[in-house]
C-alpha cells in the first residue's frame, strides 16, 4: 500500500477573538486508503502525545450526509473532488510529498469558533424564517390524496438533499447563502404541500439571509461546483422568480 509524506499548513485560531495564523506540520507514513479526516485524527494523536493542542474540526457521520464536516483544502471547499464532502475524501487522491493547505470556511456570517470549527447557526435561523410547511402534528389526509408527478417529486428531492454544510458560502467570492436558501425554497415550492406559503416563505427567508450578513449572488456558480450534493443553481433562478412574484403580492 502506498505511503505518503505530507506537508500540512493548517489554520490555527484559539478562539473567536484570537488572531489566527497558519502553522506547518509534517506527517509521514500515511496509508493512502485512509480518509482525510482520519489523517487529521492521526495528526492530532501525534500533537496530543507531544503536549500540543490538537487541531479542532467538526465531523460526525463521516459518510457525507450530516453536513458537519467541511474545510477548505488547497483553496477548494471540501477539496479537489466533485460531489464529495471532506469526510468522503480519501488520501489516495493526494501524492507523496504534497503540501496541503487547510482552512476553515471563511465568511462573516460563519465566525470561527476554534481552528477549523465555525459557527453555522445562521443557516438554522434562515430555515426558522419559513423553511417549512406550517402543518401541525396530528391527523392528515391520506398521503396519496396529493398525487405528485414523479418528475416533480424527483426534482423536489434533488433540492431537498442539501446537507447544510456551508460549502456554497465558503466557495462563493461574495459569501452568499443563495444556494442553501434557494434549495429549500425550491424543494418546498415545487410540492403542493409547500405551495400555499410560497410567497411568504421566499420573502422572509431572503430577508433573513441578508440580515445574517451573507453576500449577494452575482451568478458566479462556485457554489454549484463546490456543493457535495450537486444542488442546481436553477434553484437560485427559481428563488428570484418567486421573490419577484412575492413583491407583486
Amino acid at each position, binding site marked *: 500500500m502506498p505511503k505518503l509524506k505530507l506537508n500540512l499548513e493548517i489554520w490555527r485560531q484559539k478562539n473567536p477573538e484570537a488572531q489566527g495564523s497558519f502553522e506547518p506540520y509534517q506527517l509521514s507514513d500515511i496509508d493512502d486508503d485512509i480518509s482525510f479526516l482520519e489523517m487529521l485524527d492521526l495528526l492530532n494523536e501525534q500533537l496530543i502525545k507531544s503536549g500540543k493542542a*490538537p487541531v479542532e474540526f467538526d465531523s*460526525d457521520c463521516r459518510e457525507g450526509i*450530516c453536513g*458537519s464536516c467541511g474545510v477548505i483544502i488547497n483553496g477548494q471547499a471540501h477539496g479537489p473532488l466533485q460531489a464529495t464532502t471532506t469526510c468522503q475524501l480519501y488520501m489516495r487522491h493526494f501524492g507523496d510529498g504534497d503540501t496541503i493547505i487547510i482552512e476553515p470556511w471563511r465568511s462573516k456570517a460563519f465566525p470561527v469558533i476554534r481552528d477549523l470549527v465555525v459557527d453555522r447557526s445562521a443557516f438554522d435561523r434562515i*430555515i426558522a424564517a419559513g423553511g*417549512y*410547511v406550517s402543518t401541525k402534528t396530528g391527523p392528515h389526509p391520506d398521503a396519496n390524496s396529493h398525487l405528485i408527478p414523479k418528475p416533480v417529486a424527483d426534482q423536489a428531492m434533488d433540492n431537498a438533499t442539501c446537507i447544510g454544510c456551508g460549502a456554497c458560502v465558503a466557495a462563493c467570492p461574495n459569501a452568499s447563502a443563495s444556494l442553501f436558501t434557494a434549495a429549500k425554497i425550491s424543494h418546498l415550492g415545487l410540492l403542493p404541500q409547500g405551495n400555499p406559503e410560497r410567497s411568504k416563505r421566499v420573502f422572509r427567508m431572503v430577508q433573513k439571509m441578508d440580515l445574517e450578513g451573507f453576500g449577494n449572488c452575482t451568478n458566479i456558480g462556485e457554489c454549484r461546483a463546490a456543493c457535495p450534493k450537486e444542488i442546481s443553481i436553477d434553484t437560485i433562478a427559481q428563488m428570484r422568480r418567486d421573490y419577484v412574484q412575492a413583491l407583486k403580492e
Partner: protein
Amino acid sequence: MNLDSKIPSGDLSEKWSNHKGSIKLVNPANKRKHTVLVVGSGLAGASAAASLAELGYNVKCFCIQDSPRRAHSIAAQGGINSTKNYPNDGDSVYRLFYDTIKGGDFRSREANVYRLAELSSNIIDQCAAQGVPFAREYSGELANRSFGGAQVSRTFYARGQTGQQLLLGAYQALMRMVDAGKVEMYSRREMLDLVMIDGKARGIICRNLTTGAMERYAGDSVLLATGGYGRVFFLSTNAFNSNCTASWRAHKRGALFANPCFTQIHPTCIPVSGDHQSKLTLMSESLRNDGRVWVPKRKEDASKPPSQISEDARDYFLERKYPSFGNLVPRDVASRNNKEVCDEGRGVGTSGYAVYLDFKDAIQRDGLQTIKEKYGNLFEIYDKITNENPYQTPMRIYPAIHYTMGGLWVDYNLMSNIPGLHVLGEANFSDHGANRLGASALMQGLCDGYFVIPYTLGHYIASTPLPAVDTQHPAFADAENSVRSEIQKLLTVGKTGKKTVLEFYRELGHLMWDHVGMARNEKGLKTVIQKVQGLREEFWNEVLIPGEATEFNKNLEMAGRVADFLELGELMAADALNRSESCGGHFREESQTPEGEALRDDENFCYVAAWGYTGQNKPETLNKEDLHFESIKLSQRSYK
C-alpha cells in the same frame, strides 16, 4: 423493584385508543405554564419537541451537534415501514405487529409493538404533509420496497436518504416552533447530569461545548432522545460523536437500563480496512432487494477475483438455506451466516472477512438505469471508500454494529422508573426486542415523538403535583458540583497520562467486538468483564487529555463519553452472561439449534432484564419484567 409496565387493560387492538380516552389532559391555557426539556434532536427528539411546542408547552431542546439537523437519524438510508398496504399485497396492522414481534425474537412487549404498528400509517401522512419528498410511482402515488423479515412491500423511502428527509421534516417543524417562540434551541450542549428533586426528574446540567461553561436548566419533565450506544464498540456505523452519556448519567441517578446486551449487527457494511479507521459505513439493507449474497463454494477460490469464479462454483448461501426469505432474512440471521461462511475460510477480500453482494443479475434483469435510480447514491459511497465500482465488481460486505435495541427501561407511557424522566426512540428499550427489523427505527422514533409522548406527557403533568423549581435549588448545585469534579478528575489525570482517549476507545471497542459482538460465550464474557474493569482502572490513571475545561475541547468531551462506555461495556457483558439463552442478535454459542440458529429459552428468560446502578465498581442489581404474550404464540423463529 416492582416494574409496572402500565399496559392498559382490554383487547390488544383497543388498548391505545382506550388509554388515550382515559388518561388525563392538560388544559390548553395551562400548557404554557409548563416547561419540557428535550435532550436530543433526532427523529424522536425533534418530533417530540415540535409536537409539544405546538400543543403550547414551553420547550427547551438540546443537541451536541452544531445544528439540530445533524442528529444521527440523518444517516438512516433505507426506509420507514408502514401498514398502508398501497401495493395490495396483504399487509395489515396485525402483520406488521407480528413481523416485528417475531423479528425481535419474542422479547418485546406486545402492547407497545401493536401501538407502533397501529400508528405507522399516521406517520407517513404526517411526513407527506410536511413536504417530505418520498419516492413516487409514475402515477404520482407513493412507492414501496421490501425489507428483511417481511413478505410484503411496506417500506416507504426517499432514495437512499430516507432518514435525512424524515429528519429534515421534523427539524423544519422544530424550527417553525423556534420561530414561533415556543422552542428555545440549545445547540452544542451536552447533558452531563440529571437533576432530581423530590424523587422526580426536574432538570439537567449541560456543558456548553463552545465555551466549556456549565449550564443549568429546570423543567417539569425531561425527555431523553439521545440515541443508542453502539459506539461502545468504537467501530460501528454510528456517527463519530454518538454516545451513551446522557442515558448513562440518568442510569447513575437511578433509571434502570434494560437489555443492554441486545445489540444489532447489520449484515451489509463496508468491511474494516485498517487500524486508523474511525467508523464503518452501512450499505442499506434495501440493497438486498436486488443484490445476491454469495461466497465461493470452495475455500481455495476465496482469493480469486470474483470474475474468475464460475456460477456453479458460487454458494448463494442465504438463498440456499432460507428459500422463503432468501436474501431478505432478518439482520441477525444474515449477519450470523456471513460470519459463519467467513469462519469456514470462504470469506473474500484481503482480510478474508467479507462476502460478496452481487448486482449482476439485477442489472441484467432490470437494466443499469433502474439500478442506478434505486441505489445510485449508495454505489457512489461504496466507490468513494473502496475505490471499486460496484456496477462492475460485486460489493464486499461484512456485518458491523449498527443499532442497539437495549436502552433505558420505560413503561407504556415511555416513562422510565424515575417519575418525569421519559425516554424516546433508540434510547429506550421498548419495541424491538432482541433484534430490530429494517426500516423500523425511523418508524419508532417518529411514533414516539409525534404520536405517543404528546398524549402521555400530558397525563404525567396533569396527574402529578409539580411545585415550581428553579435552578437555584440545592439539587442543581449538587449535580453541577459532581459534574465539575468529574471533569476536574479527568483533567488532573489527563495532564500526565500516557495514552490518548482515542487509544482507550479503540481498545475498548476491540474487547467488546471480540467478546460481546456477534457470538458470545460464558468464558469470553467472564474474561471481558475483567478486561474492561482493568482497562477502566488504567483509563483513570493513564489517560492523556489535552487542554482545559473552559474552552472548546473535543478530546475532553470524548474522554467523558469513553469513561461512561467503560462502565456500560461491563454491564453489557454482565447482561449477556446472565442471559444464557440465544435470542435475536444475542447469540450465546451454548444455546443453538442443531442447524446453528438462535435457541431461545422461554421458560427461564421470557423477561426484560432491567439493571439498577448500585455505585462505582459495584455489580448492578437485576430487576425482571416478565413478558406476557396474549395474542401471539411463542414459537421457534423460522425463515426457511
